[in-house]
């Protein structure tokens, strides 16, 4: 067997990608219990329901519908996302026979798919070295890692489509002439755009704007208009076909896009932001940490000189491939300033796509420096290798530690993940409580537990204690509390609070159980979890 250069390059990329996946799977390598914020629960739960029940659905099951029933503005009570993303998880979950690791691993592969698409695109346009270094640096992108851990999963995968879609169009445009053209690239553009919409609408709009800017930039340089009517019509038909596969979800994209005018009041202050890349951190207090908006903390200040030099280098050289990157960069700039026209929703999420374009430009900037040094060709080659090593060393010194510690320590507190005892209880609930039976949960200190237990048991849960603390219920809280207890199943879960040093929390609920649930029927009693039901006396 003869090993060729292309094989070695592929092996090198796979080594980098496996290293990235090793890092990104740290949160579940030693603890396979699921984790994440509310978004993560919904993404995991949709997949789990399909694989566990061995069926898909048009209308949401009750336990999902009670929270997400209104999220599809076009057709309420149906999926608010197109199904492919979650079905991918369900396919792998069914095949690998696991509820957690297969879903979380597939998600890690999807979330790091940007390494694949950037490697592929940059290698095609700029060669192997910039491509492998870009993929390597993206491994430590904190603006990708943080949403990945929190649960904005489809977006992470969706962004990987942006460079690919732009690449296909670029190939179509640059190879087009009156005598010959490669319409396959236009069809692929259309196909990838349609799938991009399946994965996440926000990233689809990034791709659309990117395509428009790329076309304008290329047209300004080449003055070429690739008007191949047949290919264009086939591409439109292909996209329309994809849109029609999930009409309710495609309708929701249109409905949500046209309804989104929630923040007209922000328009006035937005103009001052034109000179800034990121939105103001103060506008997102409570939802995203301030560090998320910091270039220093997310990208590393050491990348800035290379990035600026890279932009300058591309802008001066302006070959078609340079224009490709500049168009991608400019389109993201426009996306990040869409609040100027009142489109503010998910603005901070668009920021998470920054590294995808900053990193390749940073690498190209660094590797371009030797080209400007007046030495002979051989020395230039060695200087390029030296700069490559410098990038790797700097990345390990300044970018790796934050990424590694964040991923290693993610959701390691035992209270923020469901435990084996709770999973056992949810299996009992699924087998013994009817589909419309609501379970009122008391005990776990983490507010997300009730949603995890709902999605694990495929039954609706009520976070009774949480909502009774809301001001609007304060007047008749006791009455509501008692009513809910008598109507629902009541689950007392001491698995977390039982382990607290301070026993007062557990004692409070034990006393409550003894007094308030004295005449309830005990249905389940195992591992510090008890489930009761009030039975109406005959």
């Amino acid at each position, binding site marked *: *067997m*003869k*090993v*060729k250069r*292309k*094989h070695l390059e*592929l*092996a090198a990329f*796979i080594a980098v990608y*496996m290293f990235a996946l*090793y890092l990104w*799977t740290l949160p*579940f*390598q030693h603890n396979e219990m699921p984790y994440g914020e509310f978004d993560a629960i919904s993404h995991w739960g949709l997949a789990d329901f*399909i*694989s566990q*029940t*061995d*069926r*898909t*659905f*048009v209308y949401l099951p009750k336990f999902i519908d009670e929270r997400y029933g209104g999220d599809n503005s076009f057709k309420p009570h149906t999926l608010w996302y*197109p*199904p*492919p*993303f979650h*079905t*991918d998880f*369900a*396919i*792998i979950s*069914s*095949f*690998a*026979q*696991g509820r957690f*690791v*297969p879903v979380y*691993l*597939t998600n890690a*592969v*999807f979330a790091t*798919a940007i390494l*694949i*698409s950037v490697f*592929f695109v940059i*290698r*095609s346009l700029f060669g192997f070295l910039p491509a492998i270094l870009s993929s390597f640096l993206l491994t430590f992108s904190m603006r990708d890692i943080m949403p990945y851990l929190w649960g904005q999963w489809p977006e992470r*995968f969706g962004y990987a*489509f942006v460079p*690919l879609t732009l690449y296909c169009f670029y190939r179509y445009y640059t190879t087009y002439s009156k005598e010959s053209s*490669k319409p*396959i690239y236009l069809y*692929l553009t259309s196909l*990838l755009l*349609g*799938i991009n919409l*399946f*994965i996440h609408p926000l990233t689809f709009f990034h791709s659309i704007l990117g395509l428009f800017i790329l076309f304008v930039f290329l047209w300004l340089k080449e003055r070429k208009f690739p008007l191949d009517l047949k290919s264009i019509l086939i591409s439109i038909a292909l996209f329309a076909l994809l849109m029609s*596969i999930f009409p309710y979800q495609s309708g929701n994209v249109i409905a949500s896009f046209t309804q989104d005018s929630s923040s007209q009041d922000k328009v006035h202050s937005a103009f001052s932001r034109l000179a800034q890349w990121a939105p103001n951190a103060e506008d997102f207090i409570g939802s995203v940490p301030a560090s998320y908006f910091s270039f220093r903390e997310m990208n590393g200040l050491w990348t800035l000189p290379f990035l600026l030099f890279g932009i300058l280098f591309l802008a001066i050289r302006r070959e078609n491939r340079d224009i490709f990157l500049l168009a991608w960069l400019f389109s993201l700039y426009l996306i990040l300033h869409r609040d100027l026209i009142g489109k503010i929703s998910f603005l901070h999420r668009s920021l998470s796509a920054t590294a995808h374009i900053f990193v390749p430009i940073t690498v190209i900037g660094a590797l371009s420096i030797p080209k400007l040094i007046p030495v002979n060709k051989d020395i230039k080659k060695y200087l390029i290798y030296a700069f490559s090593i410098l990038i790797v060393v700097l990345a390990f010194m300044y970018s790796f530690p934050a990424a590694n510690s964040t991923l290693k320590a993610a959701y390691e507190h035992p209270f923020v993940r469901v435990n084996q005892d709770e999973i056992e209880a949810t299996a009992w609930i699924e087998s013994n409580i009817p589909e419309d039976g609501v379970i009122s949960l008391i005990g776990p200190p983490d507010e997300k537990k009730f949603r995890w237990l709902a999605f694990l048991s495929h039954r609706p849960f009520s976070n009774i204690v949480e909502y009774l603390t809301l001001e609007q219920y304060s007047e008749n809280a006791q009455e509501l509390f008692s009513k809910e207890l008598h109507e629902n199943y009541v689950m007392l879960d001491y698995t977390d609070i039982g382990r607290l040093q301070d026993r007062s929390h557990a004692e409070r609920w034990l006393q409550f159980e003894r007094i308030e649930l004295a005449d309830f029927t005990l249905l389940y009693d195992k591992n510090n979890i008890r489930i009761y039901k009030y039975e109406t006396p005959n």
Partner: protein
Amino acid sequence: MKLQIDRENIENIQVGSLLIIAVIVFFYFILGLQGALSALGIMVFFVLPFYFLLGKFNLREDEKLAFSFFIGAGIFPAIAYWLGIFISFRLSIFITFIILIAAAYFLNRIKKKIS
């Protein structure tokens, strides 16, 4: 010329197989059998059918590999989801796989006939 293409294909298959085995072993070591099966599933369901389908078009090897993963992750589940409304989801995964492999096979035959 044809012999050279065949030899190159064989080399690609050999190197590709080695890399796939390495990836599966890697996931087995970090995530156990479920990790290894998941990696295998991703390659079999999302990459393989569309790699064969795209093989019939005039694309470079790296383009076929990259596009097949991204297209496969969108189209394979779309078909499986629709079938899963009417039949068992596991069965729908299997049928989707057969449909796509058959489509690649027939596309190949049609292309051969045309050329």
